[in-house]
């Protein structure tokens, strides 16, 4: 991979640091009037998710990381691995539970997911920002209580539990924001 100097560090650039692939989030150039210039760089370790700041001397270089983000279709899980397919080549990738992490509660077959590959292997998986899932378990709906007031837990087909308004019933399909886990509304058509 190419080497990148601190003045090429941009948000989104993937580099190797201390043996791990990292994504650059922010890069601040600082200089004390006269004297040594530094870059204070915020990074995310793509293996552990840890976000932290590291200071470099301006002009230092880091090796690029072989990390690419691909939109892939989620196929299924065999209980141990999760399988994704590249829509153009039909190439399949298996991701382990560590790579899928918390995303597993949002994975619905055929949904497009962002899969981050590191040296060709899935490193992390991000579900679509919005998913439509069926309610499989919740307390009975309260008719007529559509305007306001409370909510109740509902278990969805993927195992996720979200808070929904009281009027919703089992079998209905709802739209959820996966970034916040919040109920957005009934699915547009179901």
């Amino acid at each position: 991979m190419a080497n990148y100097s601190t003045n090429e560090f941009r948000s989104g650039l993937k580099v190797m640091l201390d043996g791990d692939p990292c994504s650059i989030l922010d890069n601040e150039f600082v200089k004390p009037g006269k004297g040594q210039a530094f870059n204070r760089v915020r990074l995310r370790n793509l293996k552990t998710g840890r976000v932290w700041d590291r200071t470099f001397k301006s002009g230092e270089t880091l090796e690029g990381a072989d990390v690419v983000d691909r939109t892939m279709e989620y196929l299924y899980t065999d209980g141990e691995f999760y399988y994704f397919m590249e829509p153009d080549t039909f190439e399949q990738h298996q991701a382990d539970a560590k790579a899928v992490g918390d995303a597993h509660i949002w994975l619905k077959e055929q949904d497009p997911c962002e899969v981050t590959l590191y040296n060709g292997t899935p490193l992390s998986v991000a579900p679509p920002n919005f998913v439509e899932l069926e309610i499989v378990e919740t307390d009975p709906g309260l008719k007529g209580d559509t305007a306001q007031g409370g909510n109740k837990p509902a278990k969805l087909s993927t195992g996720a539990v979200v808070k929904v308004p009281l009027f919703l019933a089992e079998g209905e399909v709802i739209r959820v924001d996966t970034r916040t886990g919040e109920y957005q509304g009934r699915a547009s058509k179901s």
Partner: protein
Amino acid sequence: MSDWQPGAGLAQLRARAKLLSTIRSFFAQREVLEVETPLLCSSGITDPSIEPLIVASGASLPGAERYLQTSPEYAMKRLLAAGSGSIYQLTRAFRDGEAGSRHNPEFSMLEWYRTDFDHHALMEEVADLVGECLGRRGWQKFSYRELFQRSLNIDPHTASVDELERIARSGHDLGTLSGNRDFWLDVLMTHEVEPWLATQGLCFVYDYPASQAALAKIVEVDGVSVGQRFELYVDGVELANGYHELRNAEEQRARFEADNQRRRASGQPARPIDQRLLAALEAGLPHCSGVALGLDRLLMLVSGESDIRRVLAFDWSRS
């Protein structure tokens, strides 16, 4: 292409025009002469922490590249030695590799020299000018020593290099960084002291360690050698750097050569020494102090912008 458009709004363009006119009338009232000197110079700067942009080809450049000035200092000192009296210049300066929310590789600089001023007298005048531009504000003054004592409770002149490194590493992930005393002082300055200064309003820092004197006179104060250099910080933004100017040609030559040795030691190219500046110092530079002030940063403060790209019509990426 959408980046044909300016990064600064019309309000910023107007604020810049007004700022320039305020500065010109400030100096007109004080009878300081406005001058212009070349942007393309045959000698570069030796300071290892400043890299110039170089113009390498052209029919007017037979056999020798020229350097876009990193500041108009050397040329202005030649004018002073030729008897100009107090002078100021509004100009562009260029520094390679300096880009960020407070840096653009091409930037506007206000530089001025006052004959018969020491650095303390010049600090007063800088405060007056900044007051004209930003509205009158109180200001404080700390020696470099006091500054480190107040913000970090250490004496920057006597603390060991190990202690400086230990304090720097205690609050920050500094990876494999390594360096000498000045290096660790610079880490502490940028990572600890400047954030503290951001809470202190308008602040001058003066009497830097002799090793950071640059082109300032070096004197003994309280048992340590200090450079009579100052910096102005406004709400944590480093705005100006000034010197009680070194006038001794031999000492200036020795500092340039020491700079070049440090450049070679760290694998940087040595720079030709400005022999015309040294000749001017030999002929006699009047007793004076000088200061360079970042005009774009002053405009950021005037207009409340936190990113230099929003006060430049076209920043580096759009130019």
